[in-house]
């Protein structure tokens, strides 16, 4: 007889936006359970770097537009699933104050073959970077705060798809 947990619906797309840190191992095993026909899983994580062109950084502050964020990430995930026939997608994006080396974002995808999994994960990251309503402020070691400018390279990365 199936337990409560086994009966719980497992959605192909799972998205969370929250201040709390994530564990890649846990997210990966969830993705794997939702991917019984897949031969390839790609997981991308983005980390806070401890410097920029101006010097050392203490961390970042991530602001977002709550009502729009999940909607926007969901639309990106659905596009990727249709384009590369992905079996499952997980996106976790943190918000609020993060320190150097903290995890910011996780994108995990599963597919039958590795090309689809690599392309699908990269597509999601390129679109997330240019369409999802998050804004980053860098906090210097001295405590100063500065909004980060959008990068042309991110726009070009998006335009390649």
């Amino acid at each position: 007889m199936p337990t409560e947990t086994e009966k719980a619906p497992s959605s192909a797309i799972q998205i969370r936006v929250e201040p709390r840190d994530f564990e890649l191992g846990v997210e990966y095993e969830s993705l794997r359970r939702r991917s019984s026909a897949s031969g390839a899983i790609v997981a991308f994580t983005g980390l806070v770097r401890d410097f920029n062109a101006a010097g050392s950084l203490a961390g970042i502050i991530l602001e977002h537009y709550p009502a729009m964020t999940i909607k926007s990430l969901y639309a990106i995930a659905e596009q990727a699933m249709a384009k590369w026939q992905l079996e499952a997608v997980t996106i976790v994006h943190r918000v609020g104050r993060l320190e150097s080396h903290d995890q910011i974002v996780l994108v995990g995808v599963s597919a039958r073959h590795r090309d689809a999994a690599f392309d699908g994960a990269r597509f999601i990251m390129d679109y997330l970077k240019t369409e999802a309503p998050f804004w980053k402020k860098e906090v210097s070691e001295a405590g100063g705060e500065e909004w980060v400018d959008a990068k042309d390279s991110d726009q070009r990365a998006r335009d390649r798809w």
Partner: protein
Amino acid sequence: MIKVLFFARIRDQVGCAELDVELPDMVDNIDGLTGVIKAQGAAFEEALSDPNLLIAVNQEMAGGQTTVEDGDEIAYFPPVTGG
């Protein structure tokens, strides 16, 4: 009534996160609404003239010609920098 939201650098520039705007009879799109908001003061005029400004209508990306009607939620923000 239109609910207007400002985020990130744009919010800092206008000094305000949220604004309720009464839509004048002649105004039915984003360009019109933006004009009404700019008239509220120099900070608004400057922030909303940013050539890179992005606009969402009911949480979807929109352009100057996108229709706006009573009850909509409009957001103004700079290019996104997440991930």
